């Protein structure tokens, strides 16, 4: 039977099966498994049926814990049910996994295995998560390639039904989940033939039903629990045999034979490695090369890890084996060894005891760790392990692939060893996230995979930054199956899609002799050579590289594709690589364009076809001279002035050489310095804003909205201008209180991302040429040097005394130094201005608990952090615990601080006689209400420390350590709506109820932004999101209303783009309030499908339409006899659709489901009106008077509405 060949990634391969063999699918986003849920949701919304002709119900839950619970319930009531997850998500499922296994319930979880958060979080692949579940009683089936992941998904489903043991089908996150491979698709008939209808019927008959009721989940006592636990043994004994039978059945069906423990290598191997997952592919490729060279080596691929079939494992080994290295892709600190190693040691011991297997003597066994968090695992490393196994002394508990210069556990290996085959085309593409490079490469793989006999593989490496991110695509094409699950280090084709990378990366060193280098550059073939760094010139000459250039950006502009150079560079690749004949390739590209873009309309197709036609005329070969003569050297990743740690550790990470850092370079406990983003000059912006002092009205709005903290304002004495660069701009301050002072707005030219939000918000226009404002975008390169000097000078100007600033006025407040700068957030991010504002106001005494999500990524993703310090070295202290627990984590800060403050105050009292009664009274009685109070308290604390310094009593020593806590600290709990509305809501609610003084900032983008825009309970009705492909049918949860119901919670709903002064006011009130405060901040997002430079206009439209309300609920007002709720936005003044259809998230529903869009718009409009009326009613109630001291409920009478504008205090 001929099956379709498709080039897809591991997630799609697994979802293809999982979707079709289940009826209920409970999902929750977590990288790298989210796409499986997205596929399932997308297919369900398109009414794709499963193999039994019914459309699976796909339900998003509020957390993985919730998903597991729902799965459990669905299974108990008889539905075939699955879920997809990874990492922390799998951990949250563990309690239910014990239950599901304990109840012998057939189910499969499909896991894109990923690292766990320990000293740091990692989204990348290893086996830490699945290993943490090995005691749950689930069978664990491991796939090592995209094809296997699909096949195992089916085998797992068949095996669970037959064995009644639930299965985890796992495969390596990213390496397999995101690798694009040519695979043979299992058909629905294949699936049907593997799944026995009788077993499904049996599953249903075991389901809970009032028609034949049973009881499950009993509480068992010491008399029977133990025996009950032992009842399942037969099922576990039978499971491996069942699984192997089904693997054999699959082999009969599709021809691919798998074994539970699959030996590969020399039949007389003496040295063997044991491992599972994608690394096994690389090991296989290496063994192929080594055995061809006569080495006696082999491997055992572990497919069914649990239940571990000891006999089958032992019997899989040749009689000749003398030494075994067991490789674990996880770390279990403090254990006798990692899990697979321990299993192998135990199995060998038991096997020899029982006389199983073919050898009489126990081989020497060592265990080692490799590939944690997608660390590369290469043939060179595999060979290094085999070489080590030949040595005299074996190093147990070794590591491979890193340099452990602390405990010396790492093995040496020769990194130049390669098993790349000459017939395989290996191509590397360096692209910018926005330019379509990865998409084009995926498309090229499809073209080659589906139109030739070649096998194809694509793997994509992404940046850790969200803006201006580099992508590196690794593509292999060859006549035989590709087992190379590692990055390309020897390429015969390298393409640089962005000329700026010439400055930053050494792209040509992977090129082999005679390889091809393609550069997108506006410089023609005659001008380009002199602009290359000298080292690159030398490599091109020495290796006789053929060098081509194309002005892809120019061609893209001509055909109306601005910035999307994907199709153009794809044509160049095919034209130069020779994978396909040129004309055939171009025809295939055109066919593919039509196929890919047809649904997006003729214009899009035509545009791309024009790009194909315009490409080859602009592709030129560069004559490479005999001698390098360039004077350009690649600049260091960070300047020499950077601190030692930044230069030594962060610098190599910035340059992409983090893999070379030894263990000793890294902190032992995951603690990193702040104030590091300022050293990473990314020069992303093609254009940056230039200030026109003559037009500027000095309102401060530009600085306030700048998402990246690159627009700064300073007010200073004119005398400070001594030594200013000639181009430094200055003007007189317009603020009466700053009369006589000079005023400057300065842009950080190398940190600006060019988002242009500042220009959009600038209200000042040039009266003669209103197209110019006080800020205007100008090309960056010509002004880079000049503005860098201006910026450096600007930084030398002193910060204004915080005590003299009116923080309620944006104009004055915005000269406060941001202690959050140059983040890697998306260009034009809607979240970061809120965080920056908080750091300006409170940063020098701020502690932040940050939920996992966008804000933890741009806040804490290595190498650098935007959180910084002021001249005194003070700044936000930041930590991320998890996604689900952030409110509790922050509450922990508060409780701990309060306790220690209490103790510090006790110590001050106890030591008053020693430190001075007056000082003690001052310290204990300080108001600490405003900046002046805080300043004075810091002065007192400084004196206290001086007086404590000579004292040696235990109490004095304790107070010395606690003294700084006597200055008021500001606890901030920050996260997105996925955290606050969904996974963390229970904790958030508890923290609100606690009454403790914490400030909670919800950056509400109305979707799970970080994982790619999945629906949360904050997602508004009618919005299209992942997991809501057909538009969200229900309304948005009113988190503020829930919080207000407590009565003691300060609640504000703000939108910077609608009323910036309202936002400022809310932040000040929230922080000042001695109790829990919740600020829900509307944050426009790339996942809204908007023009990000006009994000603030979207915010304003949301408020004008009544979709987003501005309000503040202040419990103290009620005590004063006032209505605690102040509605600060006007009644809706534009139709809801005028807001909604500005944004793709709403608009695309009109293109995909027009009837639903119409209906949902009407429903949403009604809901807006209804909500407005309710809030208006609540805000206009007139309390009868102040609350009595002992509490009580005053009468409410209604009063006429006030104008919200005048109601702002």
């Amino acid at each position, binding site marked *: 039977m001929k099956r379709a060949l498709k080039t897809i990634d591991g997630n799609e391969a697994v979802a293809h099966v999982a979707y079709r063999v289940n009826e209920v699918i409970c999902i929750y986003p977590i*990288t*790298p498994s*989210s*796409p499986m849920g*997205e596929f399932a*949701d*997308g297919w369900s*919304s*398109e009414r794709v049926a499963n193999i039994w002709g019914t459309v699976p119900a796909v339900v998003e839950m509020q957390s993985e814990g919730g998903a597991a619970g729902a799965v459990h319930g669905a299974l108990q009531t008889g539905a075939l049910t699955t879920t997809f997850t990874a990492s922390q998500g799998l951990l949250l499922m563990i309690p239910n996994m014990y239950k599901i296994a304990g109840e012998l319930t057939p189910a499969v979880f499909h896991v894109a295995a990923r690292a766990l958060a320990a000293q740091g979080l990692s*989204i990348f692949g290893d086996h830490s998560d699945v290993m943490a579940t090995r005691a749950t009683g689930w069978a664990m089936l491991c796939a090592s390639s995209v094809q296997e992941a699909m096949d195992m998904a089916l085998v797992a489903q068949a095996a669970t039904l037959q064995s009644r043991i639930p299965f985890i089908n796992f495969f390596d996150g*990213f390496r397999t989940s995101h690798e694009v491979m040519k695979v043979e698709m299992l058909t629905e008939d294949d699936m049907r033939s593997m799944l026995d209808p009788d077993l499904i019927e049996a599953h249903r008959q075991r389901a809970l039903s009032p028609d034949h009721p049973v009881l499950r989940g009993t509480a068992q006592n010491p008399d029977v629990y133990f025996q009950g636990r032992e009842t399942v043994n037969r099922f576990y004994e039978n499971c491996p045999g069942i699984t192997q039978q089904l693997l054999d059945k699959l082999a009969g069906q599709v021809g691919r034979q798998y074994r539970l423990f699959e030996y590969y290598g020399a039949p007389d191997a003496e040295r063997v490695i044991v491992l599972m997952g994608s690394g096994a592919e690389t090991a296989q490729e290496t063994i192929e090369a080594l055995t061809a060279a006569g080495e006696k080596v082999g491997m055992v691929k572990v497919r069914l890890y649990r239940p571990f079939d000891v006999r089958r494992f032992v019997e899989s080994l040749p009689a000749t084996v003398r030494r075994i290295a067991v490789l674990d892709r996880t770390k279990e600190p403090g254990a006798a060894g990692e899990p697979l190693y321990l299993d192998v040691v135990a199995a060998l011991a038991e096997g020899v005891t029982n006389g199983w297997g073919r050898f009489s003597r126990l081989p020497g066994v060592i265990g080692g760790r490799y590939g944690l968090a997608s660390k590369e695992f290469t043939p060179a490393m595999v060979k290094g392990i085999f070489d080590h196994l030949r040595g005299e002394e074996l190093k147990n508990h070794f590591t491979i692939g890193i340099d452990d210069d602390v405990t010396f556990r790492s093995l040496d290996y020769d990194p130049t060893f390669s098993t790349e085959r000459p017939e395989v085309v290996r191509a590397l593409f360096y692209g*910018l*996230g*926005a330019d*379509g*490079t*990865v*998409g084009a490469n995926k498309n090229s793989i499809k073209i080659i995979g589906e139109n030739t006999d070649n096998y194809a593989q694509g793997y994509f490496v*992404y*940046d850790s*930054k*969200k803006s201006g*991110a580099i*992508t590196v695509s690794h593509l292999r094409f060859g006549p035989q199956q590709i087992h190379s699950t590692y990055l390309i280090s020897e390429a015969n084709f390298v393409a640089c899609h962005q000329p700026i990378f010439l400055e930053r990366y050494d792209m040509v060193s992977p090129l082999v002799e005679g390889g091809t280098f393609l550069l997108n550059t506006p410089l023609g073939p005659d001008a380009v050579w002199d602009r290359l760094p000298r080292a690159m010139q030398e490599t091109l000459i020495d290796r006789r590289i053929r060098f081509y250039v194309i002005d892809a950006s120019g061609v893209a502009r001509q055909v*109306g594709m601005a910035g*999307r150079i994907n199709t153009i560079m794809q044509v160049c690749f095919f034209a130069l690589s020779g994978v396909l004949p040129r004309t055939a390739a171009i025809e295939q590209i055109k066919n593919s364009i039509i196929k890919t*873009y047809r*649904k*997006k*309309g*003729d*214009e*899009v197709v035509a*545009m791309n076809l024009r790009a194909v036609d315009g490409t080859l005329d602009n592709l030129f070969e560069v004559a490479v001279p005999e001698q390098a003569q360039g004077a350009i050297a690649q600049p260091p990743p960070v300047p020499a002035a950077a601190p030692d740690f930044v230069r030594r550790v962060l610098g190599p990470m910035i340059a992409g050489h983090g893999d070379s850092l030894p263990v000793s370079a890294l902190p032992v406990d995951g603690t990193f310095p702040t104030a590091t983003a300022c050293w990473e000059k990314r020069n992303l912006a093609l254009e940056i804003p230039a200030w026109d002092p003559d037009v500027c009205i000095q309102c401060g709005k530009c600085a306030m909205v700048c998402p990246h903290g690159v627009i700064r304002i300073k007010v200073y004495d004119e005398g400070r201008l001594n030594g200013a660069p000639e181009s430094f701009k200055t003007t007189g301050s317009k603020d009466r209180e700053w009369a006589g002072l000079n005023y400057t707005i300065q842009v950080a030219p190398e940190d600006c991302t060019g988002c242009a939000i500042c220009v959009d918000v600038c209200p000042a*226009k040039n009266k003669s040429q*209103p197209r110019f404002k006080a800020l205007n975008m100008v090309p960056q390169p010509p002004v880079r040097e000049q503005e860098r000097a201006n910026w450096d000078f600007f930084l030398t100007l002193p910060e204004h005394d915080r005590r003299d600033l009116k923080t309620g006025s944006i104009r004055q407040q915005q000269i406060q130094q941001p202690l959050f700068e140059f983040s890697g957030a998306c260009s034009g991010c809607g979240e970061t201005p809120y965080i920056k504002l908080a750091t300006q106001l409170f940063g020098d005494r701020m502690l932040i608990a940050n939920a996992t999500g966008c804000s933890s*990524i741009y806040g804490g993703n290595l190498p650098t952090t935007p959180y910084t310090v002021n001249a005194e070295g003070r700044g936000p202290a930041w930590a991320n615990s998890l996604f689900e627990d952030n409110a509790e984590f922050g509450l922990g800060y508060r409780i701990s601080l309060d306790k220690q403050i209490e103790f510090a105050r006790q110590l001050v009292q106890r030591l008053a006689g020693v430190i001075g009664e007056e000082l003690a009274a001052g310290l204990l009685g300080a108001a600490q209400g405003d900046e002046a109070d805080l300043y004075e308290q810091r002065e007192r604390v400084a004196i206290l420390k001086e007086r404590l310094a000579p004292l040696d009593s235990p109490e004095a020593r304790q107070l010395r350590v606690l003294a700084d806590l006597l200055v008021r600290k500001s606890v901030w709990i920050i996260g997105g709506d996925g955290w606050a509305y969904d996974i963390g809501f229970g904790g958030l609610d508890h923290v609100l109820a606690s009454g403790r003084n914490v400030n909670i900032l919800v950056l509400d983008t109305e979707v799970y*932004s*970080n*994982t*790619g*825009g999945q629906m949360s309970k904050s997602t508004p009705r009618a919005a*299209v*999101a*992942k*997991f*809501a*492909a057909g538009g969200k049918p229900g309304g948005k949860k009113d988190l503020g209303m829930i919080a207000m119901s407590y009565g003691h919670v300060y609640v504000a709903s703000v939108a910077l783009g609608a009323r910036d002064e309202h936002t400022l006011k809310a932040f000040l009130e929230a922080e000042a309030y001695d109790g829990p405060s919740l600020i829900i901040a509307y944050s426009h997002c*790339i*996942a809204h*499908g*908007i023009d990000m430079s006009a994000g603030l206009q979207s915010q304003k439209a949301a408020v004008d339409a009544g979709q987003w309300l501005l309000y503040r609920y202040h419990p103290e007002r009620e005590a004063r006899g006032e209505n605690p709720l102040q509605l600060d936005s006007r009644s809706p003044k534009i139709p809801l659709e005028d807001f909604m259809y500005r944004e*793709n998230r709403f*608009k*695309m529903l*009109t*293109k*995909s*489901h*027009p009837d639903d869009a119409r209906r949902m718009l009407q429903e949403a409009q009604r809901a807006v009106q209804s909500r407005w009326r309710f809030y208006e009613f609540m805000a206009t109630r007139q309390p009868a008077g102040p609350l009595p001291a002992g509490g009580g409920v005053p009468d409410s009478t209604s009063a006429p509405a006030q104008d919200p504008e005048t109601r702002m205090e």
Partner: protein
Amino acid sequence: MDLRTTYLGLDLRTPLVVSASPLSEEIDHIRRMEDAGAAAVVLYSLFEEQISRETLELHHHLTTGTESFAEALTYFPEPGEFRLGPDGYLEHIRRARAAVDIPVIASLNGSSAGGWTDHARLIEQAGASALELNIYNIPTDDQLTGAAVEQNCLDILERVRAAVAIPVAVKLSPYFSNMANMARRFDAAGADGLVLFNRFYQPDINLENLEVQPHIILSAPMALRLPLRWIAILYGRVRASLAGTSGIHTAQDVLKMVMAGAAVTQLCSTLYRHGIEYLATIEREMVDWMTTNEYESLGQMRGSMSQINCPDPTQFERAQYIRSLHSFKAGSWRV
């Protein structure tokens, strides 16, 4: 009273036709138009340029930010198909036709040669009773001659005329050097009707924020004079039936237009002001006036005050300028 008329070969109960406007975006509105006595409805225009722009915009938003960050390779689900292009408009035609018995006239504004004819064909297939070509552009290229502009308009008509069998009307701009000659040439090129005149949205300057803004201005009664003149001049000189539009707000206005020679009058602003049901008032007042003045049918008066029939034909040739535009707040519109 016999108010019957024939327009584009369609027999209509009265000369009251609703002109192309956002009012017809809702099927419910179209039903109300029929209920209030509209003889036909011209649907809002299908703008080819807008479709292209929306298509590109959708593509842009679906690709922006994709494939650049490992955790978020895309930001939107991608449905298997989109209903782009004229699908929505064609569906609207079908639904309108199913919802009412009166003729439904589609309106098309193309931006490419292919767009004009392809979309015209699709509109015909969707069941439109007739097609009104909205040749709406403001030539700003100072190298383009008036003759070329005129030829372009005629070319469009000829292409569409060749593509479809349903009646085709052309909605004209008044800015031709010789309106009468252009009308004759359109007539010769196969136009079944001429709609006089297209009103362009006029830009305005916002003094507060120094921006140029398009303003939707409802027509003022005096706007009637321009089409009135040209209908009076053209009546009897062209084969195509004539539709008057702009500034027709009352029964009197309709009667004047018919007397000038209009087969139908197209109404819009007055329905925004007074509501769709105002159509019934206009019709009743027409009947009242005709009864009072002892007319038996509209046919009696059609063209009676045209240039060829009126007492003083020179009145239509004297130059004058009419400036009587008002702006209206959105809140004052009633639908």
